């Protein structure tokens, strides 16, 4: 097997007296699909910020494709949450994808045929060619996410980071979005770190789960982590995991975890 795409060794992160997680050892191989689950405030977003080089670890090391994590690494593609884009934003779908290629570079850039073809090929890969010229502010949430995936992939990253990309999408768009991410890691061996609080839409694709809760974590296969015994131990309260028709339901998650003010999270829920 080739060298790991993401290695976190002995990582810990705390804010003041509060430890989000510590002694985290995590290795993600090329083509692997890792789902990151956990309550709000359990450090999922901070983990992404660490991988993006926007947040330093309290201790330990994080390496992307063998190099220490740094801001703006070309090895990492990033798909954010779906959020509303103003209808008058002067960008078309193709321009948003182009930003993934050279939006960070200085100067005004020069139009080139190669650049245009590359953008069109990415739009085609995510099935967004039909609305390549439509203003991004007029696209539906699902269409926007496809375009954002194309933007994240155009730099040919070795690791694709997805930060709750399914939030506020309808079930159909949720499944097409996850299918696109899965397709990429199969065809290009791109590793995927997928932060979500809904395991069910990604369940068919997940290789391993990282579950963060109350300052600790568990890593393992879906079966190893998402069971009543493991989650009860993580939350230190009885939690019941029910499997039903290929879906996972969790009952009895505590209202707050550790500090007050954190919304609890159903890992799963309906939809």
């Amino acid at each position, binding site marked *: 097997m080739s060298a790991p795409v993401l290695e976190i060794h002995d990582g810990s992160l705390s804010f003041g007296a509060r430890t989000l997680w510590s002694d985290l050892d995590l290795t993600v191989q090329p083509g692997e699909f890792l789902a990151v689950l956990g309550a709000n405030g359990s450090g999922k977003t901070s983990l992404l910020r660490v991988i*993006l*080089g*926007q947040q330093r670890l309290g201790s330990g090391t994080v390496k992307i494709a063998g190099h220490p994590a*740094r*801001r*703006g*690494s070309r090895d990492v593609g*990033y798909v*954010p949450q779906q959020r509303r884009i103003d209808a*008058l*934003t*002067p*960008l*078309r779908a193709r*321009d948003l994808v182009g*930003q*993934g290629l*050279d*939006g*960070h*570079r*200085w*100067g*005004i*850039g020069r139009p080139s045929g190669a650049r245009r073809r590359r953008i069109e090929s990415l739009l085609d890969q*995510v*099935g*967004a*060619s*039909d*609305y390549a*010229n*439509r*203003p*991004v*502010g*007029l*696209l*539906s949430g*699902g*269409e926007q996410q*496809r375009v954002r995936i194309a933007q994240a992939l155009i730099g040919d990253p070795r690791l694709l980071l997805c930060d709750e990309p399914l939030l506020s999408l309808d079930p*159909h768009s949720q*499944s*097409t979005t996850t*299918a*696109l991410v899965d397709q990429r890691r199969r065809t290009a061996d791109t590793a995927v770190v997928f932060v979500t609080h809904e395991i069910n839409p990604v369940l068919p694709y997940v290789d391993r789960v990282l579950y963060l809760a109350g300052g600790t974590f568990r890593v393992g296969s879906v079966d190893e982590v998402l069971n009543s015994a493991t989650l009860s131990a993580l939350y230190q309260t009885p939690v019941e995991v029910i499997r039903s028709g290929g879906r996972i339901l969790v009952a009895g998650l505590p209202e707050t975890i550790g500090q007050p003010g954190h919304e609890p999270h159903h890992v799963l829920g309906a939809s």
Partner: protein
Amino acid sequence: MSVWHQIFNFADYGQLLSLVRNSIIAGLILGIVGGLISTFVMMRDLPFAVHGISELSFAGASGALLLGVNVVVGSLTGSILAALTIGALGSRARDRNSIIGVLMPFGLGLGVLFLSLYKGRAANKFGLLTGQIVAVDTPQLAWLLGTSALVLLGLLLVWRPLTFASTDAELAAARGVPVKALSTIFMLLLGLSVAMSVQIVGALLVLSIICTPAAAAMRVTASPHVVTLLSVLFGVVSVVGGILLSLGSNIPISPYVTTISFAIYLVCRALGNRRARPVSHAVAPAVAPTRSTVTG
């Protein structure tokens, strides 16, 4: 009829034209700079900040008038201080708007104080609020040229990352774009542009050059290149057109500039509404076929 002649009077037009060569050059430059910077003002949702900066620029200019120092320098000082303050304190839209709301009347008040104390020509006072382009002299033009060159160069240098940061700051930051530094640089460039515009159209009407051109362009297209070109075109047409129309009259140029700029906006808005309708209808059916290609 006589009112009409006061507003539009084209007697001896050829002779007048040669006298205002400087002003037309100034108008051209201002139109270009205004058109370019307005696209970012719109993307970053900063029109109110532009207004706030221009009032402090007015305070700086009137202070300079009172002290008998270079008015352009006074105007630049006021607007750069305001721009940097707004940039530093107001990263979130709510904070920003309240800071501008607090700063703006203070700036206007200072300006009024300075002008009341000033004993010079009344036309100078009025000009700072409502514009005085016909009076562009050669040293003033040199200032204008220098400032514009700086703004243009700065904008071209940061164009792509600034566009990225202005359309999705969070994502741009994740890609390593220095979002905060770019915001400061942009506020500086904006301060310079506002100070220039105050010299020409006056503090009250700066928005017609630094806001309206891009607001109009964004109504008719979403292509970033076309928006930029149209915005520059609209800026130039408004300012130079305003100068040409105002020549024979003894009315300041600002009403001409603002009216042209407003008319362009109305036309673009009407065109944009026609454009948006078929698009919104097309959204629903267009989704269905692409869905099946991906899931399949």
